[in-house]
């Protein structure tokens, strides 16, 4: 339930709130659940706001960062939770 609320909040903040708020919510989703929702939110941000030519020639920078962070967080969370 909390996860769903955070996901909806992140979508709304991607549309209406400053980018740092969206980033905080996505990071929370990544840290707590390694959730794929962070990738979806990053995808929404990139589809809405990245120029077609990309940012620094990267077509989907936030999505790539989200994918990397989510995958990195899985072993880290596993280690932290089992320690």
């Amino acid at each position, binding site marked *: 339930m909390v996860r769903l609320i955070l996901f909806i909040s992140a979508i709304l903040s991607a549309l209406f709130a400053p980018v740092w708020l969206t980033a905080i919510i996505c990071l929370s989703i990544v840290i707590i659940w390694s959730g*794929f929702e962070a990738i979806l939110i990053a995808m*929404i941000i990139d*589809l*809405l706001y990245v120029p*077609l030519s990309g940012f*620094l020639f990267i077509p989907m920078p936030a999505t790539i960062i989200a994918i990397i962070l989510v*995958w990195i967080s899985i072993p880290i969370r596993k280690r932290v939770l089992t320690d």
Partner: protein
Amino acid sequence: MKTLLQHNKNRKSNNTNKWLLVVSIIAIAVFGLDFLLGGSIRSLMRNFAAGAWGMSASVSMSVESSGLFNSRRQLAGENIALRSQIASLQSLSFENAILKEENESLRKLAKVAESRSGAQTYSVLSHSDVSPYGTFIINGGSADGVTAGSLVLAEGGVLIGTIESVGVNTSLVLTIFAPERTVTARLGDSTEAIVSGRGGGNGELSVPRDVEVEEGDFVYYEAGGEIIGQVGAIFASPANAEKRLLIRTPINLYGLRFVTVAR
């Protein structure tokens, strides 16, 4: 031998990883498809978001005009503040009239193109601070005659960005001071420099140390002569041959409601 709890944990973990892999592949595939289709998917996304922005704007206007959240004391305070604002605006208006007359004659002398035939005004749908890339979306697209590369101006003819990509009903504007964007600008009459965007309406440029410049000087877009910003701070050191200028757009990008797109 694994316990039932460990077995369930492993299964849950494998399911999570599977979901993550699927979503990662879908995300990459969506962008690949969008690139192949020339931006159709993002155009669709922006149209969808435009509906949400429009709905939110009408809801917030209704709430504000209803006065639902205004207390009596708050209204009285607002009244006093507005009266003093009117008084100061009236004096500013008088000064403005004098400056306009002066500007008119200077423009004729400099032969700067004054009229922008075919320019249209559009409303700003998303705030510039929502995007991490220095972009915002307006409610004009190819159906309204908007073309990529057009200049986007705010009040006073200040250049704030250019049209980066055009959808049917919406367009993406890349601000002049978007992060890592560089534009050629002019300081004063003849000093050319490259301005590097830092985001948030801020930019930076370097000029030779002996160039005379003061805080508050205007910086112009080299190609068209429009104002793009004002010098906010100057950093000079005797050891350097150049001095660093921080410039800022005079427009409050967060409060921007309407822009003009010049053809």
